[in-house]
Structure formats: structure tokens, C-alpha cells
């Protein structure tokens, strides 16, 4: 055996990842420890029900309603929970506001912490070694890889999610968006703009 079984029981499962998952699912299902229909339900939830549209709703509302925005920046957890956005990996929310003076960006260098109820499951790059390693040391170079260049006098604040607090970036409302409805505004809010690696779309 390549591994000591007692330290690394996973080495007993098939090495090919899809088969490894299937094997573990099968073992657990046969013992009655997993309901395959529950797995389908979990996948459906994060594939189809919970995603960045939730965060976009919050951002568009903050752009439209100053009182909502003030409350959101003061105590995001209860404010977004009132909109129905609460749950696993979003129990303690903090919203950080981009301004001409300061741009915010979120990373989890230790794993992949991310505000699930507002943004869903993180994209592959967010979980990549390259992003985790570099976002804290050279955020501007990382931003350039997303096509984002900030003015030299805008400072960058990178939030490393080392605890159970989950961060959402409130991007600046784009120019030319005056008079748009909340729904039209939400369509401008891309996922990456709420992580801080992108900017909202500019209305055409």
C-alpha cells in the first residue's frame, strides 16, 4: 500500500475521483446513512435556487435605498436574513463598501470560505491555490488578471475570511444607472463584483 491505512483510510477507495465519490456514496447509502434523494435536493439547492442573484438583489436594494444601505453596513446578518438570505455559510455576514478611496476584495487563504446564502458555491478560481496564495500579497496583480485596474490612489483592503464571518463587497453604483429600477440595477451586479475581483456592468 502506498499509504498507512490507519492514517489515510481514503487510500482504500478507488483513486479516480468520480469513482471515489461514488464508492463512498454507495457504502453510506447501503448502511442507511445517506438518502440519495437528499443529495439530489442539496445539489438542486445550490445549482438552481441559491446563487449570486441573491447578492445582486441585496446590492441593488442598497443602491436604491439609503436607509437599507445604512442598516446593511451596520448589521448585515439581520438585514439580509429579513430578505430570506440566511443559512449555512452565511450565519455571520459583514458587508464592506467600495468607495473611490477604498476597494475591497475577499479571499479565504486557509480554505474556501464564502457567503453561500448570498453567492452560492464559490467558483473554481476562488478555491484555487493561485488565488488563495496571491490575493493577500499582490491583489493588484490578481485584479489585473480579472481585467480590473484601479486608480493608483485607491487603496485595496483584502479581507481574509479566517473565521466564520462571511464578507460581501458592496460595489460602487455605476455611472449612467440613474433612474433604473431595482430589478434593472440587479442585472448589472455580477458575482465577481461582490467578491471584489470585478466591477458591475455599466448600463448600455
Amino acid at each position, binding site marked *: 500500500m502506498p499509504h498507512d491505512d490507519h492514517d489515510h483510510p481514503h487510500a482504500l477507495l478507488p483513486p479516480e475521483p468520480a469513482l471515489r465519490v461514488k464508492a463512498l456514496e454507495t457504502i453510506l447509502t447501503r448502511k442507511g*446513512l445517506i438518502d440519495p434523494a437528499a443529495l439530489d435536493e442539496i445539489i438542486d439547492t445550490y445549482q438552481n435556487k441559491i446563487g449570486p442573484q441573491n447578492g445582486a438583489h441585496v446590492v441593488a436594494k442598497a443602491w436604491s435605498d439609503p436607509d437599507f444601505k445604512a442598516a446593511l453596513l451596520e448589521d448585515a446578518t439581520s438585514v439580509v436574513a429579513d430578505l430570506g438570505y440566511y443559512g449555512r455559510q452565511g450565519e455571520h455576514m459583514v458587508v464592506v463598501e467600495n468607495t473611490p478611496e477604498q476597494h475591497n476584495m475577499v479571499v479565504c487563504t486557509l480554505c474556501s470560505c464564502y457567503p453561500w446564502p448570498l453567492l452560492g458555491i464559490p467558483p473554481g478560481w476562488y478555491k484555487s491555490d493561485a488565488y*488563495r496564495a496571491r490575493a493577500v500579497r499582490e491583489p493588484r496583480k490578481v485584479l489585473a488578471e480579472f481585467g480590473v485596474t484601479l486608480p493608483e490612489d485607491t487603496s485595496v483592503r483584502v479581507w481574509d475570511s479566517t473565521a466564520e464571518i462571511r464578507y460581501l463587497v458592496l460595489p460602487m453604483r455605476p455611472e449612467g444607472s440613474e433612474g433604473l429600477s431595482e430589478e434593472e440595477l440587479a442585472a448589472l451586479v*455580477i458575482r465577481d463584483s461582490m467578491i471584489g475581483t470585478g466591477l458591475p456592468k455599466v448600463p448600455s
Partner: protein
Amino acid sequence: MTRIHDMGGRFGDGSVVPEAEDAPVFAEDWHGRALAVTLAAGFLGQWNIDISRHAREKLSPKDYARFSYYEKWISGLADLLVDKGVLTLEDLRGVDRDGDHPLAERTLKAEAVADALAKGGPADRPSSVEVRFETGQAVRTLGQSANRLVEGGHTRLPAYASGAKGRILRLHGTHVLPDSNAHELGEAPEPLYAVAFSTSELWANPEHPSDEVVLDLWQSYLEPA
């Protein structure tokens, strides 16, 4: 000394490759399956979130580096199921021993999924530990990033931020201490702060002098500066 997962600031990982906003949530079907199996197994109630993080982090450095994201999840889960006595090595070898499992009554059913995910698992707790620092106060992180309770154990002070001087940005309240909770030594809640560090405190060649990194750090990781 921390483990392989603690990679903040590391050199050599190459470019970040952005994805289209409408890329599939799960690039492969088995990714979704791996996530769902892991969450469902968690609802058996045999471990907490800090234990499950620790299970992934203690994969051998070779495995951690070569496994893709969800391979880490599923392998950490297999190790944890054996470690907690839910499954045996024989079970993983595929030896046929079906039958009633004592934990089967806890199995997450499809109709309970929505409520279970919506309920979440808050980490804030009342604490008798006195709040020691106030907003704006200068603090310094411990000089060595390490679990002080268990040699080589789980901790949340990344190596890149150890021994650095920062300032308290905000108090998040009192939260479960992962260093203790990951090793079943109790939740040991204590004050948790957002602490801001100038990049010049963290890096030999900071990219920009006015930039900052903010970390969420427990009070026991901090000393007055």
C-alpha cells in the same frame, strides 16, 4: 509551524484563471455529489465544522497538493468517517456488511434538506472571557502560528500574519475557538476581532504602500503592541 493548506503569500502558483459568470456551478457532476455527500454525512452529527476542516488540512502534503478541491473534501470525509467510528476500514475496502447502522435514524432525508441548510450553524456564543481590546488599538499577533493546545493542530492564524502588528478594526462578538473545538476540547468561546494590517507589516516587498489585509482573529492570538 502550520500545515500545507496555509498558503497565503506563497510564491509559484501561477496565474488566476477567471471563469465566466454563467459557468456551471459544478464543473463535473461528481463535484456536486462530493459536496452533497459531505454535507449529508455532516448531519449525522458526529463532528463539528472545525473537525471537518481539520480533516482536510491533515491530508498529507503530497495528497493535499495533488488532489483537486472536491477530492480533498471526499478524502477528508472518508478519513473522518473512519476516525469517528462511523465506518470501518473494512467498510471502505468494500467488505459486504450491510445492515442497520446505529446512526441510521439520524440520516438527513430529502424533505428535511431545505430546513437543515436554511438553519445554518452560528458560531457565536456567550463567553465569560473579558474583551481585552478596543477598536483602533494596536495589537501584535503571536510570533509563531500554531495551535497552543494540540501539537500540529488546527488554528486560524495564518503563518503570513504571525508576529505582525495591526490594529483592531471591529469586534465581531464572542465566537467558538476553532483551536479547541477542532479537537473536541470544548467550544471555549472568546472575543473575535477583525484586525487590519498594513501590507508593509506582512510582506518584504509590498505591492502598494496604502493597501491593507484584514484577518478575523481570536483574542488569544493577540497581544497589546
